[in-house]
């Protein structure tokens, strides 16, 4: 079902966990569809110094969160805001069709986390 890249990220998810003193936190998904993804960011000088995530979700959700953190880490906030769910899926070499809709939400969570950070800047 899942390709080897997805399975690698599922088996060895990068950057899992919490950032206790995160600058921004974003959570997406809901239990009725079965996937929840929460992203934590640490922003230093307009750059994402650290990105971590937690998930309650299927293989695709676990892998998407992992891939997202890899894509986002080190980017500027502006660059990170441009990452799409599709970018994540592509970086994973694709997800099964039925998984694209529900489990591919990591970029949305990141954007929420960055908005959270921004709202605190004002």
């Amino acid at each position, binding site marked *: 079902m899942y390709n080897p890249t997805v399975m690698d990220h599922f088996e060895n998810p990068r950057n*899992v966990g919490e950032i206790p003193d995160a600058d921004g936190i974003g*959570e997406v998904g809901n*239990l009725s569809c*079965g996937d929840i*993804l929460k992203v934590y960011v640490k922003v230093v000088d307009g750059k994402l110094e650290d990105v971590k995530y*937690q*998930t*309650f979700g*299927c293989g695709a959700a676990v892998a998407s969160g992992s891939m997202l953190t890899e894509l986002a880490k080190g980017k500027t906030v502006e660059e990170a805001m441009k990452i799409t769910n599709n970018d994540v899926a592509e970086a994973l070499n694709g997800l099964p069709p039925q998984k694209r809709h*529900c489990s591919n939400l990591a970029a949305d969570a990141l954007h929420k986390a960055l908005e959270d950070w921004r709202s605190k800047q004002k």
Partner: protein
Amino acid sequence: MRKIYMDYSATTPLHPEVIALMTDVMKNVFGNPSSLHSFGREAKKYLDEARQKVADLIGAKFEEIYFTGGGTEADNIAVFGTAYAHRKKGKHIITSAVEHHAVLDSCAKLAKSGFEVTFLPVDQYGMVDPEQVKKEIRSDTILISIMHANNETGTIQPIEEISKIAKEHDVFFHTDCVQSVGKIPVNVDKLGADLITLSSHKIYGPKGVGALYKRKGVRVEPLFYGGGQERKIRSGTENTLGIIGFGKAAEIAVREFDIENTRVKGLRDRLIKGVLEKIPDVRLNGHPEKRLPNNAHFSFAYVEGESLLLSLDMKGIAVSSGSACSSSSLQPSHVLTASGLPQELVHGSVRFTLGRENTEEDVDYVLSVLPGIVERFRSFSPLVGRKTV
């Protein structure tokens, strides 16, 4: 890698004796049972033997067994076939919220075409209340369809009581025994049903073969038309090879009933005990006692089922899950939802169903692997600490 199959309710491997017979039949029996010549008569003889063996499995008569293309088809003949044959008598059908989709969705289809369907609720164990069945019966009720044992939770329904109520009210009664047969006693007279569904591939026979038991005199319409095989109930050249395999599987299920079920129940109990002891925040789903001897169904709080399933798979352990992600429809288990389980625990459910090839070592291997997997996912679950029921 060590491979442990614990998904026997999804399907079973062929029994070695079934393989042996089918191998022989593939080479030596090929006629069309409708043909009058020797090749056809030979095939017919094998078909009849299989029919007798399936009849014997449930204490039925030879001529009460109709072979179908699987349990799904048999369920549909029971539901649609009874509804259409008796629509002059009434338009009301009673079933439960925890039926297999083969019954649930055929009833839903009938509800869209002029019939009225009552989907009975269930208690926390997924159990139907016979009193409630009685209350819902109307003067135009023509069919009650309640499964014997649930395919997800293994919960066993009070079928004898329900069939008695059906009979008292002169309503046809169908029960899906796909999961129960071979695991708990299934006898047509004790159960008192008019129609019973069986499937070969849950009892170590081939897939794509099932049977409908139809008590003599009960009228049903076929789902489709053609050469009139199976006394017009299921047209189409018979799946002789599959049916012969089913017959052998039925024979073995009778012979090994006691020894296998006792053995498997022991393993299953060991698994349940171990899981509940070793892992915190686990719920055993389904009825604690009135359940199939091979079924252990858990919800692991904070953790999603497909992830558990995949992780177990990477360790060679095959199970299934009621999470939305692991179903092709992306709907979480209607059985667990109807039993009142909160969404999170529905998505965190994993079913272990044991069978012939499982050993004590298998169970212990699962118990050595599972706690770490659950723990690992919990370590990065955003739900840990939130209130769950």
